């Protein structure tokens, strides 16, 4: 890789957010628009009050101009998050959350708090979830070995978070293992 070491570590959260904004989300438009071709595909037509699925970046753009209402995804509701949190606390594995839940929920809570019900509760639940999951991924350190690491249902932001350290640690483990085996040979 040609990048200097300092830049090589990991993707930044804003970058992940950018990636996540390619995801489709449902909106209720307030303006009418024909089906329009974008680089990422054709979206629309916008016909209020019909719901349409458009990429998150477009929804953000329209929302900031007050040209649409965003329909909160099913998982961004108190009940779902509460059950996830319960699962998180009671079960060993990670709960089934959308892969980019952290990015999407952050964006939506930032730009469209008025379209989401009981935002405060959701915010605190998300924080709890994040902490619970973080604790679990820390526990995962125990199982760290040089070969593989399987953490199903881990989300992009969390992977991103642990990646630099885990990769490094696994590298070291591999190194140690190799040393051991060479010693054996000797």
């Amino acid at each position, binding site marked *: 890789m040609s990048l200097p070491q300092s830049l090589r570590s990991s993707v930044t959260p804003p970058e992940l957010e950018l990636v996540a904004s390619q995801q489709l989300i449902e909106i*209720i438009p*307030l*303006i009418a628009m024909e089906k329009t071709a974008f680089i990422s595909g054709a979206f629309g037509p916008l016909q*209020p*009050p019909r719901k349409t699925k458009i990429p998150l970046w477009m929804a953000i753009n329209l929302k900031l101009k007050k040209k649409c209402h965003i329909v909160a995804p099913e998982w961004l509701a108190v*009940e779902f998050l*509460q059950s996830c949190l319960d699962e998180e606390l009671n079960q060993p594995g990670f709960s089934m959350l959308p892969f980019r839940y952290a990015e999407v929920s952050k964006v939506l809570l930032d730009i469209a708090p008025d379209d989401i019900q009981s935002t405060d509760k959701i915010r605190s639940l998300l924080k709890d979830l994040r902490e619970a999951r973080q604790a679990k991924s820390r526990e995962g350190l125990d199982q760290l070995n040089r070969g593989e690491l399987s953490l199903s249902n881990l989300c992009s932001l969390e992977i991103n978070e642990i990646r630099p350290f885990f990769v490094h640690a696994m590298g070291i483990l591999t190194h140690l293992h190799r040393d051991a085996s060479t010693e054996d040979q000797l």
Partner: protein
Amino acid sequence: MSHPSIIARKAHSDGHTCLTFSADGTHAFTGGSDCAVRIWKVAEGAEQEPGNATEAEQPVTALAASDDCWLSGSEDGCVRRYIKNKDELHGDVTEEAALSVRCIALDEQGTRLAVTSDNPSAKIIDMENTIKLTMLHGHRHNVRRATWRPKSSILSTCASDGEIILWDLSSEEPMILHTMNGIIPPVTDPSSPEFLHDCSAIWHPSGEQFYVISKTHDVICISSNNWVQSGKFVDKEVVGPTTALAISPNGAYLATACQSTVYIWTTDKRQVIAKQSANPNTVITQVAFSPKEHLIAWTDSSGNFVRWREPIPLNLPNSVKRLLTATTTTSKSGSGIPKGVDLFGEDNGLSLDDLAAFEELNDPTGGDEEGIDFNIDDADFVIDDVGGYLEDQTTKSRAKDDGLVKEMVSITKAQPAFQSGSTPFQTNKRYLAYNMLGVIEATRSEQEEYNVVSVDFFDKSARKSYHFNDTHKCHYAYLGERGALFASDTLVLYKPYGSWTTSQNDWTYSLKKENTRVLGICAGGMTPSRSFKNNSDTDLMGFGNVVLATSEGHLIFLSGTGRERRILALGGDFVTMVAGDEWVLVVYRAGATTIDGSQSLCYKLYYFDDLSVRQRDELPIPKGHTLKWIGITQEGAPVIYDSAGLIHLVAKHRVPHHATWVCILDTNLLERRVGKDESYWPIGITGSTFMCLILKGRQEHPGFPRPLVQELPLRMPFNTQNEKEEVVERELLFKELAMESLNGDELMTDDILSKERAIDKEFVVLIQGACKEDNVNRAVELTKLLHNLQTFDIVAKIADFYHLVGFKEKVMVLKQVREDSEDRFEAAREKRRRWNKIDTRPQRLPDVDVNGANSRPRAFQDFGPPPAIHRPGLTRATPSVEGTKYSSSTSEPPAKDTWSDPLAPSTNFTVSEKRKRNDFEDIEMESQSDISTPMPPPKQKANPFARKPAVEANKNPFARKAGNKTILQSESFFEKVDAAETTPAKSKKKSNNLAVKTKEKDKAEKEGPRQQTLFGLFGANQNGNQKGSAKRKTGLTPPDEPESQASDVTMADASQIETQHDGWEETQLIEDKS
């Protein structure tokens, strides 16, 4: 009121408290962490000294009372029995081995007691013989609460892990009916604050459902039919965990405690009707309704005992009076539940609906609500025609419902007029109109002087939302494509959507006659193609059309600018109407409702342009149901929704008198409806989606703030389960609708093509399925329905794949047939035209037009008119010609007149004037008049035979044929002809022409010498002109005299003069020919 409505009293020390009423409701028992039970006389105030029962050694956790005793359970593990309403201990019922009793529950008869303690198995104790125990093993965690289902031997127990088990205890051996997990929150630690929250299943007195506090701290309703959640009690105001709940003895109200406030809900509509805040920062641990009195009591975690008298607002039936119809929708299915009639009070049998309707009808000024509240549910819909709203009426209708007595006396209440998409006032707001374009809301001002009307569009880019103060208090509004319409009783205001300066186009219209009211309004018009911000479109398309229905039975049609067009009589009671692009659909009741419950509603579809009725038919509403909503789909077809939950669409509404009703959705069969108690409030239909608001429970109108518009897929309620087939048929229906709306010459649109392609794809799948099942006949049938030729090839491939050689051959034959037959789009267009022919024919009626239409093409297709451009060139002949041309053009108008005016004098006059000139000028003038009015030549054709009688006898419009003039003029012309005849060129005239000519010649000869003088001159001219004209004719009509063609060759490079002369020479020739 002798007592204050709230009586609070400190009863116990801080901690968990419990509460129960004695069976007769005279005493209340409270227990608390101070190990005592206090016995309160309900009738006495706060100052009373309660009785004490202090036998318990640990905090009292549970209380129960029956007809002959009361019981207390304590953390010391004892359940003690006391003598009725007294503090005398009767004895211990049972003793748990040092485990805290958490709940005790007596069944209705007071014979069995359920006891739960910190132990996974609950106990059933026979009260007659307290040694007789039944243990209920099934829970894995400590059982916290137990409740009996009324009128049955079903016990529900709630454990600390969140499990609910329903036990059937009718037999000796307890049976687990059902286990539910994850509904109530798991709380294991008795010291945690959540442990104070009630987790028991509170049964509705009918036993059809129970209410429980869910994990999310909401109160949910679980139906006993299938044990799934059927509803939820949600309100904006109620936030935070619910800690206790109780149901009123009649089952109409539910009390919940949340954040130190007690809320009272109606169980049918799930709306908060009253609330009372208690001591802040305390947790209300138990709420109870008095079994016999209109009273609620509760105890909280700081030991207070509070009574609230008459908690239910006075306008609603109170908590103890038995309601007949206030059970839930499932009441019919709940078997074994007696629906006996209790005659308690005056308004005993009154349902909430009836009450509302009653109030409205009794309120003469209540125009605001009138015509809105038509949603009276079928149970109360049949009314007695003699009695009013008293109980005997309800008993009758109830009896009818039970199928015991055949209802004979009552008639069906007629559905009042209403506007689709409007609601009555809810507190101070209401919807006046709600459709696919937007919403009109009215908000009452504080002093009720005016309403604030706000018009809000979904598509903010097309139209601008606005609001205004409405001093007339409009109670009708309609949101049309081209303007918003408002109406109070007599005044109508139309606000077309215009530019930013909106008000300048507004107009008002008022009914002058006394005692006439507006019953319904609507405004239709073409959907604007583009934004309203640029005026171009609006200016041309106008503001649509406005229709008012009045109480006189009239429909007043107005133009979009307020011009009164026509008043039509409807001939029935107006119910509602809706306007589309070019029509208005009016629903009315032609006669009376029928005895068996039918509303007998009909509709008429009027076209705006000619105000004709294109469709008239009955509305397909089942008996006992009413029309709830009427609207139009985005494609422009009318749709209705009735109280039975069906949506019907008018197909073929453009074909006069051939419309059909198609059922496109049965909301009762919706998948999402399963296990939920909800109804739908339609807004519109777009493509194959049904846009609606979802109403929870028995809510009838959407509330505020505006709920989200939900999209439900349409599905024709086919009985066969094959979904694909339903999809294909539905898509075909919509394609047909799209085809019908094509105008005149259009064959198809891209949209239709893509629709067809999609349908073909579905067909291919179906054909494949049929092939798989070896059902060749089905496959052939489907193949016949295919649209595109290419699809046949695909089908042939499928046939190949399944080795169906015979089918493949058939496909190829079908393909061949399709290839050979007429293009299907053209056939469809032809059919559309045929359908509409009835309408187009009358436009061709007038005779005059027929004449003109016939004569015109014949003349000029045969000979071709000289283009007017050539005329100025005539000046080239001589200076004198130019002068004459000028003079001739001045004399043109009179010449023209002769066509329409058959009177001879004027024509004679012009002719005589002409005669003064030389022939050359004369001819020129003639030709000019011919050019300007292309009529004469054919008439001349006819004329040779009828000339003289036409002039003299036929002085009727038919004789106005210009023949008169030409013939008169031709006197001079034929003189020239005479001269021409001397030349050999003229010898070829047809015989009939000659006949005329000879006549005219005779006439001309009488004129004598004057023509002779000009003869030579003309003859020379004539010769040249003849050639020129011949040349011209070759261009237009090939079959001509070869002789002139020959001369044409010689004149190939003829000068301008010659060609210029063509102009008039040609007409000359025509005359010659004739």
